[in-house]
């Protein structure tokens, strides 16, 4: 079996030019999963999803079924879709929003039925102008088709869906910040506890927040059954997952592969996938799971793409992004750019994150620019320790949300894996890469 044999669960239509239209959706089995779900009791639908161990595809990897089961009993509950994909080098939800919006809408209605939500909101990252247009157009078609709105497919279940644009803020991908933003406020993450919006969410009501890719799996799960889904992958990591591959690879792009049965080496080097590193260069490091994740080296290439497998090695699959850095890469510059991102995107509520990110950015920049001191390497780690005491994985937290504790990942990786590179910058008075 090659890595490309697994069924395409969420990307099956992306080859069609009109993949985003209702016509194509219906011609390829669209809304069949919803019809099936509406013939079941909501708790039966929820049990089916719970049975497949659908780990959240947004970043935290929390099982969707469990998230649903934690809902506090109340007359009004909400379903909110997290389509605020902003983790650097992550571009899979972007593709699903533009390429198959009906699949997402069907997933939303199935989930809303299972949890008996009163209304659903699809929060789409504001910068996704085309994605917003495609989702809104698909929603208009879905209302017309009877798949959304009053008495859906004659089932007696009614649901309104509202597409809501964000306005440019990475932090709004954090689910409590997203809810604040949806309430028309600054995207400040909420203080925990409560840890889950299932207790206190949108407008203080119980709320489930699910990621775009997570919900896009539901139509297939309903049509094909939980057994077909759990037959793919291994352990807790079932089904397929989208990986957004970027950086120094011949074929960057989004690939749907079977979890655990595929390795980083397959993803990066297989001709049907990444196609290897251009120019015959060697691999320096991989950033798995978004820039919040600690880096891997060439010794991790044969690690399977599974949530626990990657977690045990001290990193995470996170947002489903994989960045490849070849042996010409300056790791100081890479760590600096990632840190600059966190500094710009810190919401500013917590001192360690707001101030720490800026200090780290300055120290890294002076090392890159040739004004670094030998003691700067330890200074970096000391600052990281203030953000995430112990600089371990998973990180300890000194801030309201995990943005702060994510900042040390790239810096600690650069220091631990490539300490000599940093020292060369200091000794030679600048970046040897030019």
């Amino acid at each position, binding site marked *: 079996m090659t890595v490309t044999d697994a069924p395409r669960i969420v990307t099956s239509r992306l080859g069609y030019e009109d993949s985003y239209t209702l016509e194509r959706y219906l011609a390829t089995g669209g809304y069949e999963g919803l019809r099936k779900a509406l013939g079941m*009791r*909501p*708790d039966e639908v929820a049990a089916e999803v719970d049975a497949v161990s659908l780990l959240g595809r947004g970043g935290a990897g929390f099982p969707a079924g469990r998230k649903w089961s934690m809902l506090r009993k109340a*007359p*009004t509950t909400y379903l909110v879709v997290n389509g605020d994909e*902003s983790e*650097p*080098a*992550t*571009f899979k*939800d*972007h593709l699903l929003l533009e390429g198959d919006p009906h699949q997402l809408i069907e997933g939303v209605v199935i989930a809303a039925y299972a949890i*008996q939500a*009163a*209304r659903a909101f699809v929060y789409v*990252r*504001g*910068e*996704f*102008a*085309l994605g*917003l*247009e495609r989702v*809104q*157009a698909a929603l*208009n078609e879905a*209302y*017309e088709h009877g798949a959304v709105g*009053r008495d859906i497919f004659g089932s*007696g279940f*009614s*649901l*309104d869906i*509202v*597409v*809501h*644009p*964000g*306005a*440019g*803020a*990475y932090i709004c991908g954090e689910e409590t910040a997203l809810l604040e*933003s*949806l*309430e*028309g*406020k*600054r*995207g400040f993450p909420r203080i925990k506890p409560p840890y889950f919006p299932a207790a206190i969410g949108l*407008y203080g009501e119980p709320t489930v927040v699910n990621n775009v890719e997570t919900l896009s799996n539901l139509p297939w799960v309903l049509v094909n059954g939980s057994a077909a889904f759990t037959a793919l992958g291994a352990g807790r990591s079932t089904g397929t997952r989208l990986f*957004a591959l*970027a*950086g120094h690879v011949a074929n*960057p*792009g989004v690939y749907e592969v079977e979890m655990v049965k595929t390795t980083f080496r397959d993803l990066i080097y297989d001709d049907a996938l990444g196609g290897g590193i251009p120019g015959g260069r060697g691999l320096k490091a991989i950033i798995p799971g978004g*820039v919040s994740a600690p880096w891997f080296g060439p010794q991790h290439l044969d690690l399977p793409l599974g949530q626990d497998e990657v977690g045990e090695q001290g990193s995470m699959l996170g947002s489903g992004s994989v960045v490849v850095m070849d042996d010409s*890469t300056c790791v100081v510059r*890479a760590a600096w*750019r990632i840190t600059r*991102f966190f500094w710009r995107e810190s919401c500013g509520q917590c001192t360690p994150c707001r101030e720490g990110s800026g200090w780290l950015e300055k120290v890294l920049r002076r090392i890159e620019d040739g004004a670094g001191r030998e003691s700067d390497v330890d200074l970096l780690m000391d600052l990281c320790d203030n953000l995430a005491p112990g600089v371990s994985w998973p990180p300890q937290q000194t801030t309201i949300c995990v943005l702060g504790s994510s900042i040390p990942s790239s810096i600690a990786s650069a220091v631990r894996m490539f300490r000599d590179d940093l020292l060369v910058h200091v000794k030679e008075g600048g970046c040897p890469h030019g």
Partner: protein
Amino acid sequence: MSIATGAGAGHLSVERRARAVELVALYPHPRSALIPLCHLAQEQDGWLRPEAVEEIAGLVGVTPAEVVGTASFYEMLHTEPVGTYVVSVCTNIACMLKGAYELLEHIEERLGVRPGSTTADGTFTLEDTECIADCGRAPCLAVNHRFVGDVTPASFDQLVDDLRAGRRADDIPPHGTLVRVRRQGGLAVDEATVEAERRAMAERMAAAEGSS
């Protein structure tokens, strides 16, 4: 100020004012429409004019200061004028590895402005932006949030010429126009109907649980 009398009304066009009222009605709480209304105002003016802020405040029931306080948190909402075309060049990790900073240097030279500035003729505002999620086509940029991938110095120059000549008017509208597809109609179901449906289903499920 009075919310009930629609303080600040009159800045948004009649058609946009009607759309604004429809947007507010989509949410259980009016304030949720604050960001969508800011986008609507930018569609009209290109940026958030103080008059628009007043009107939005009246529509969602907060003070103008709260509207600005919220809007200023978000990169896409501009409380100062910007150019007709906002060019957002991604320099984050995936694009940086593919030469984004070298590309940005060329763009600065071509436009004659640094990131954060607008050309003297008011046509282009340049931004050095964070990841725009188009990394498969790095280095990439967005013009008014329309994505352009695999950018080279030559393709950027062509893009500038095309924009100036109006050849991209169809796919790249002036800054502020975000979503050209409108929602058809408001909510389809009233709250009481939804509540009654959910209550009936809860009873059905409780009965099924009791009998099993």
